[in-house]
């Protein structure tokens, strides 16, 4: 089945073309700016070129269409001259009735609409100079960047191809036909197409590099692709270098933050909390700055925020939000980090899951590795599976695995500078962790992230205090607290400021020694289905500022002692479906600024004491209690009550 050239180009683009055309045809005689944005290689320019060739569009603008490529280093003055000349021409040739040729375009006017296409725009500042505010002049801006809506009247974000379109585009470039030719290994082709992640450019480039090659070459290419290595030169220059343009345009700090993203496994959501943590430890930035960088990367289509509705909120918990990245971009990050020799790389990253430490790393194992960030992705690891490696400079260690047993490598001891340790298990079952005592040597460790592991009970004398640990996050973990009385968390974590326990399925109560960790500022016990109560000494956590206990369905009351928490600013009890009331003691929390209590059907009334909460600014609640809170608005000036509509999705189905 042969397709003619036009059709191939347009594969999977019909809908996008139609949408953009609708935006172009808006009957608006003032100036009108439309943006088309998307990740590099997603077919933006192709789409816009198709639009310019479209018969309807050409007749609508009577062929008065100017197509300009702006690029990263444009000669703005020259471009302006060309646009000005184009507009002047239109005015003369068109049926304009206003004669005087002013120097100010403000006086210009075209009766017939004209279209200016600005392709490959990179900065807002350049764009602003190229938009001519002339009535009747429509500007179509093509960019990898999402420009703010103050500039754009309408915008269209490129979609990736549908799966069948991806196969047909690939087959066209690789075989010159729209489907997999008979006799070819269908699985192999599908796996290669899968690696391109529905990105048109990747499909075209990779398809073209494999054209007319023997099948053996294909399987070799597949392997290289899965290690984020280029197949051949054309792949490297055409795809990676073109994608790389986006990166080169970033500032040095943002660029290195982007490259850090390659440390996370492919196709997995990256918890925002982990990402920000890694960035703050590696680049000496604070959380706010980290968030700004995240925003920049997202606006340049270099990553996607999942569940972004709540991100950026001052009190929102980052661990419920995650980011994901297109695989081609991840490959690019790994490719760019892997240009140097293994021992000299700043980022030592395993591009995909392997059974053990990569061969490549073994070669110079006797010499120290100078990496600052190390990421390992394996299956089960036993003691002898690890190499003895030396990492004098490592600050961040990310251990991803997929197993039910995991032995922490001894080389962690040789990481004197380690500041953040991330341990994530991706298998369906909780994994047992061995050799946990290795952490005792890490005096600089500031943050720990454990996901889906069971933490064994440690013999009492082997527990060495983690003197510098500030942040401890335990997700989907099983924690053995049998001999709780022996455990003194305040001795173990003398400087802990943030503790998060999420989806800890078996935990029925917290160890009471937690209340002696007086440095604690933020405590999140969330999505814990068995949690029945908070410890009764809760009032000892005098410096607590943030308390989240949402989605703990067995929790019936807030603990005694809440009234002592005079610095508490934020409390979230959402989805505690059995919580009967906000305690009367809440009146003691004089600094309380925000209360979130969505989906608490048992709470029908408010404690009288809330009328004394002078600092309260925001309450998020259900409709049922909102009337009580609205009454409070009279007594508490500055209070704003929000009833949040729930939104439902199915993202949670895919784990």
């Amino acid at each position, binding site marked *: 089945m042969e397709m003619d050239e036009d059709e191939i180009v347009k594969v999977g683009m019909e809908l996008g073309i139609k949408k953009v055309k609708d935006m172009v045809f808006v009957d608006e005689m003032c100036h009108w700016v439309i943006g088309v944005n998307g990740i590099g290689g997603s077919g933006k320019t192709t789409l816009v070129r198709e639009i310019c060739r479209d018969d309807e569009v050409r007749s609508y603008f009577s062929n008065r269409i100017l197509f300009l490529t702006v690029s990263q280093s444009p000669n703005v003055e020259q471009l302006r001259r060309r646009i000005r000349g184009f507009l002047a021409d239109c005015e003369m040739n068109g049926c304009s009735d206003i004669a005087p040729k002013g120097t100010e375009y403000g006086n210009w006017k075209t009766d017939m609409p004209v279209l200016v296409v600005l392709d490959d725009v990179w900065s807002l500042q350049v764009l602003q100079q190229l938009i001519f505010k002339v009535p009747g002049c429509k500007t179509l801006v093509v960019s990898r960047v999402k420009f703010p809506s103050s500039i754009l009247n309408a915008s269209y974000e490129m979609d990736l191809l549908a799966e069948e379109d991806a196969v047909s585009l690939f087959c066209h470039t690789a075989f010159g036909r729209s489907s997999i030719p008979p006799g070819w290994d269908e699985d192999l082709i599908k796996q290669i197409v899968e690696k391109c992640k529905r990105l048109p450019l990747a499909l075209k480039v990779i398809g073209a590099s494999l054209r007319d090659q023997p099948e053996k070459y294909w399987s070799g290419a597949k392997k290289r692709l899965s290690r984020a290595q280029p197949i051949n030169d054309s792949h490297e220059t055409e795809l990676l270098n073109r994608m790389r343009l986006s990166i080169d345009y970033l500032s040095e700090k943002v660029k290195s933050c982007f490259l850090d993203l390659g440390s996370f496994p492919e196709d997995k959501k990256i918890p925002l909390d982990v990402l920000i943590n890694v960035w703050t430890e590696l680049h000496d930035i604070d959380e706010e700055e980290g968030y700004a960088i995240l925003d920049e990367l997202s606006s340049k289509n270099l990553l996607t925020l999942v569940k972004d509705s709540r991100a950026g909120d001052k009190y929102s918990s980052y661990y419920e939000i995650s980011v994901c990245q297109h695989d081609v971009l991840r490959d690019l990050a790994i490719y760019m980090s892997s240009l140097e020799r293994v021992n000299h790389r700043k980022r030592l990253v395993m591009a995909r899951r392997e059974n053990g430490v990569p061969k490549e790393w073994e070669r110079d194992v006797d010499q120290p590795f100078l990496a600052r960030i190390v990421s390992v992705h394996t299956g089960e690891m036993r003691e002898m599976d690890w190499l003895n490696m030396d990492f004098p400079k490592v600050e961040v260690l990310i251990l991803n695995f997929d197993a039910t047993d995991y032995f922490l490598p001894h080389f962690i001891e040789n990481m004197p500078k380690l500041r953040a340790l991330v341990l994530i298990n991706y298998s369906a079952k909780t994994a047992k962790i061995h050799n946990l005592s290795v952490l005792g040597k890490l005096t600089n460790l500031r943050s720990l992230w454990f996901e889906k592991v069971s933490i064994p009970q440690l013999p009492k004398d082997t527990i060495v205090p983690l003197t510098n640990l500030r942040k401890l996050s335990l997700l989907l973990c099983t924690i053995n607290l049998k001999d709780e009385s022996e455990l003194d968390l305040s001795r173990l974590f003398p400087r802990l400021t943030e503790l998060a326990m999420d989806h800890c399925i078996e935990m029925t109560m917290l160890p009471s020694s937690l209340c002696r960790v007086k440095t604690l500022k933020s405590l999140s016990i969330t*999505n814990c*289905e068995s949690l029945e109560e908070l410890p009764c000494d809760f009032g000892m956590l005098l410096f607590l500022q943030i308390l989240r206990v949402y989605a703990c369905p067995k929790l019936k009351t807030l603990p005694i002692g809440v009234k002592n928490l005079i610095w508490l600013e934020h409390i979230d009890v959402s*989805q505690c479906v059995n919580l009967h009331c906000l305690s009367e003691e809440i009146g003691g929390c004089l600094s309380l600024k925000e209360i979130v209590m969505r989906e608490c059907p048992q709470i029908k009334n408010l404690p009288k004491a809330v009328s004394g909460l002078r600092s309260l600014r925001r309450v998020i609640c259900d409709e049922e209690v909102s009337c009580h809170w609205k009454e409070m608005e009279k007594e508490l000036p500055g209070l704003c009550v929000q009833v949040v509509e729930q939104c439902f999705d199915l993202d949670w189905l895919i784990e």
Partner: protein
Amino acid sequence: MVRFETSEMLARFLGSTPMLTESWKLCARANVMASQGFLIDEVGGVTYVAFSGVQSLDGLEPCCGNLVPLSGVYDRGMFPALQSDDKIENSVMVDAGLLQLFLNIYHTPVFQNQMFEIKKKQKPVVFTGHSIGGAIAALSSLWLLSYYQSISSPPSVICFTYGSPLIGNEPLSRAIHRQRWGGNFCHLVSKFDIMPRLLFAPLAPITTHLNTLLKSWHLTMNSPFFIRDLGVQLTEHEKAELFRFVLHYVEATARSLEVVANSFVPFGNFMFCSSDGAVCVDDTVAIVRMLHLTFASGSPSSSIDDHLEYEGYVEKISLQFLNRTEDELCESNTYEAGVTLASQAVSTGQDHMVRPIKDCLRVARRIGPTPNLNSAGLAIGLSKIAPLRAQIEWYKALCDESDDQLGYYDSFKLRSASKRDFKVLMNLLKLGEFWNNVIDMLEKNQLPHDFHKRAKWVYASQSYKLLVEPLDIAEYYRSGDHRKKGHYLKHGRARRYEIFDKWWRERDIYGENDSNSKSRSKYASVTQDSCFWAKVEEAVSCVESVKCERDPRVLAGLWADIEKFEQYARGMVERKEVSIDVLAKNSSYMRLLEDLRVIRLQLPYFSHQIPGVLDRKVLP
């Protein structure tokens, strides 16, 4: 229409119809001259049946004041619509003595003949009666309403009582409410009359007083010219004793928030009348409070005399209607003015009474009008939680397609720490909470009486149950509750599911019968018996016991249970009434079958040890 109908306006409206006066006329005549205990008359196409208030109470004393269930034992299934198969504490009960009086009349040939005629003619009927006759009228109405229930467009049955004692308990009141019969009953109660309040108190300590009182009342009622003070009278002291005794219990009832088990509760509309007007109230709580407030303002002698004053009240109410001027009617169009008028109407000359009565009427209104609003609110709530159920459906579909071939029951039961499964658990809890709340509101009469018969709710609850209950069962067995409390079906099943079962059984199955006979061509989307998995679990534990049990008698019992289950499950599967998750390769059910197959292979060995077990299976 404004909800004024509960108050003074309805009272006035009733006064304007001839029914009130006509029925009282016949009541008065029945008191004097009903040889069979009742009289029948027809006025303007309406049949009036009046029961005499003068009834022989001989031999009934031990029964009066005691409640008996309307379960069919005493009444031979005459009130099918009121019977419920709920637990004992919820059963509908009426006063044993009053029921006996009704049955005595009911079984007379005269009454049977008359009722046969009435049923044949299908004309409107008014049952009425003064004093005890009122109670009999009420029971007759309930009987006829029950009888007419199966008829598509039954003629109307109205009941007017005058100073009638209460007849039944709270479940009776609720059942009448649910059948939407409350509007068929209008109980006239004069301000001070002791009779309607009498059964709030236990009768045993005051039997002698009561006997004297009733005899004296009967003499007066029976005398053609209504001559007072005939026969032996109570002394002033005895009157005061009686009054204080009854008042004490009326007050206690009005004060307590909970309904005490085995106590009498009013139902229908109560029209409180005084010489200046009348007020209608239909909310149970408000009725009890009004019964108390008005009674408390009376005196011992007025409490006894007022029982004989209905003639005057009926006359006043109908006259009042004629005398009302236009502007007064306009004035009462606002709610506040209406409450004021209404409270004045019953509390003439006692200004201190106006305020509490006003409050009471206001409460009655506030509680009164909400059922439809509540129901609308719940409909919105249902649409809000619908996505939670849809998400569980997606979860089920995902598990059905998953490679581990567990099906959603076992996936959820075997879950470990997982965000997805936790989300499902939260949905489960939120849905359960919603439905519990629905049932709670229904039982507190905050919803329309026929709420549980509305298709929307019957089907919504059924589809909720079929999809979600398996997960509740899974959670029960996952958490090990069955080891602590016993098996789910007997000890763990949430009450809401049993109620939904009942709704489903009692639904209007008009036009649906044929679908039952239609056989399925493919497996159901959800298993049609929501307790299927609970039965599987019980069978699994039977099989476990079989493995280690040695006592032949116990073993035989276990095998009988297992075989019963197998037969049931096979039937479900053959009729394709199970969803595919039941037949997933690694589901509990399939593993159970495999287990059983293996055990049966070894059975000769077992039975060798235990001769006599399962002869038919083992012996060649």
